[in-house]
């Protein structure tokens, strides 16, 4: 087996048995990046020297006979909106083109304590705003399964890097589908944890009530390893929470599992080939013994418009910090203060970011607040109640991740609203703060399709176990 095809568990075993060294693994991945990334463009920054220094440290521990954590020496790639100290962090934006992170995000600190080797930073839609990675200021990432198509977004670089064997796993962030949808488009596993399960300290803020950091991996087992490593309450993020311990280590028999399938997720709009793959996967769960029942989430069609009020509102407030004065791109020659703001922000932000800032500013402005923002928050309550009601009857919900197959680069970029519709099955989960897994369950031609497994708050272990039982039996 090639070193670049290993899972975390396999690489860890190999390191312990001294079949290969951490340095050899890292070099193999760095070579792969050199070979493949010209066409895929998953990476914005590659830290070759830093990675090799870290890998060497792990080899020293191994030769000294020390026990190593499971993530030690394992090469990873980090979405470029998560801070890694002393490494450039651009958020895919010209406004942060030369920004060097002054500290580590908590999730990064935790990975580093376990000996992770960070190969580099991955491409994204600017500040996470997009579903295709085409809104990156530095150019689009390509889908490794078909280079003419998008890898999804906003974490397209993180998902493509794992799918193209340019790293063993990656970290990303999900605000409305940004981990799950690219994982689905690239045929890899992605987990959006419960809101608050992973600290957001050191994550460049986009929409703070929705953002959550999570892993993208090759297998469900790896996904669990990374999630366990990064989760937990953090004094630097007051919205982070400790999950109840009893939920973490249970195993489940599919025969005891009740699965809900929301009828509102299979209406017009979903591509028939996608629907077929998802229905076949649900059928397989039934064959494995799970009890399937149709459920209703009646406010589904209102989740997306509510999301596109709440998300831009929070984004417009969060992005007010980019002022051309504290850090980042600044246009300040011979002008007054207002001009510094207007020009730095006008020229530093791309079109989609400016669209969302203006949309947020509009719906929050005097006279519109109640009609838009407050109404959207009330609809958020209704969406939340839909899920609470359904979860009284079922353990998990199975659904598509996206109604579409990976689309062609350029296909949706001229029409912002058509890009928003890509998120239709993923945004509700962020509004309610639930955990959800994207699991590859089939293909249409060369193009992968992901199944979404949605659980109750803090039941990551359950959705991972349920995902694993599929993966163990049918490997895609």
């Amino acid at each position: 087996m090639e070193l670049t095809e290993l899972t975390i568990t396999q690489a860890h075993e190999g390191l312990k048995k001294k079949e290969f060294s951490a340095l050899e693994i890292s070099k193999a991945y760095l070579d792969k990046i050199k070979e493949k990334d010209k066409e895929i463009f998953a990476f914005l920054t590659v830290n070759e020297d830093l990675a090799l220094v870290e890998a060497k440290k792990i080899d020293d521990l191994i030769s000294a006979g020390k026990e190593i954590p499971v993530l030690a020496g394992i090469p990873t790639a980090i979405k470029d909106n998560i801070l890694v100290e002393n490494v450039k962090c651009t958020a895919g934006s010209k406004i942060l083109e030369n920004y060097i992170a002054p500290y580590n995000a908590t999730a990064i600190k935790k990975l580093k304590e376990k000996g992770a080797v960070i190969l580099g930073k991955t491409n994204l839609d600017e500040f996470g705003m997009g579903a295709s990675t085409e809104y990156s200021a530095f150019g689009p990432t390509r889908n490794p399964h078909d280079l003419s198509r998008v890898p999804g977004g906003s974490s397209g670089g993180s998902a493509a890097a794992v799918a193209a064997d340019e790293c063993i796993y990656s970290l990303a962030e999900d605000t409305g589908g940004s981990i799950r949808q690219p994982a689905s488009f690239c045929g890899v596993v992605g987990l959006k944890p419960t809101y608050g399960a992973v600290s957001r300290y050191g994550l460049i803020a986009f929409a703070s009530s929705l953002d959550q950091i999570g892993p993208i991996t090759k297998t469900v087992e790896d996904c669990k390893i990374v999630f366990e490593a990064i989760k937990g309450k953090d004094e630097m993020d007051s919205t982070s929470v400790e999950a109840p311990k009893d939920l973490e280590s249970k195993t489940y028999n599919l025969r005891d599992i009740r699965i809900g399938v929301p009828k509102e997720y299979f209406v017009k709009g979903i591509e028939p080939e996608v629907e077929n793959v998802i229905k076949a996967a649900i059928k397989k769960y039934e064959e494995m013994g799970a009890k399937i029942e149709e459920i209703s989430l009646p406010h589904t069609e209102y989740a997306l418009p509510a999301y596109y009020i709440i998300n831009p509102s929070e984004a417009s407030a969060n992005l007010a910090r980019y002022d051309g004065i504290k850090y980042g791109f600044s246009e300040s020659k011979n002008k007054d203060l207002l001009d510094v703001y207007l020009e730095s922000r006008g020229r530093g932000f791309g079109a989609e970011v400016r669209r969302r800032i203006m949309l947020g500013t509009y719906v929050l402005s005097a006279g519109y607040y109640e009609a838009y923002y407050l109404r959207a928050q009330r609809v958020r309550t209704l969406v939340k109640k839909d899920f609470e009601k359904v979860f009284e009857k079922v353990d998990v919900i199975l659904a598509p991740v996206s109604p579409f197959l990976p689309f062609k680069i350029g296909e949706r970029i001229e029409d912002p609203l058509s890009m928003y519709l890509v998120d239709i099955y993923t945004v509700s989960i962020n509004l309610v703060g639930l955990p959800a897994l994207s699991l590859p369950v089939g293909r249409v031609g060369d193009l992968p399709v992901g199944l979404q497994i949605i659980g109750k708050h803090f039941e990551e272990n359950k959705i991972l176990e349920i995902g694993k039982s599929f993966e163990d039996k049918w490997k895609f």
Partner: protein
Amino acid sequence: MISKEEVKHIAKLARLGLVEKEIEKFRKELSSILDYIEKLKEVDVSKVEPTSHSFEVKNVMRDDQSQKSKVKSQKLLELAPEIKEGYLKVKSIL
């Protein structure tokens, strides 16, 4: 449909400089998104409380003790476009 004047007004509130030809483009795009979110008017929300956070969180308190910053201020200053004597330099306001 929102007007060109409204787009200019929002852009100024948001401190975003726009060039003339962008104004018409944003007017069309923002109008089509606003039309789409009008859909929410179909929902009766008269008896529903708003949700700002996906699950209940209470205020998180700590003892009122001073702590050393975990990030060195020099490191943050180095990121600023213009500094003077250890401060961020800002254009005059008056």
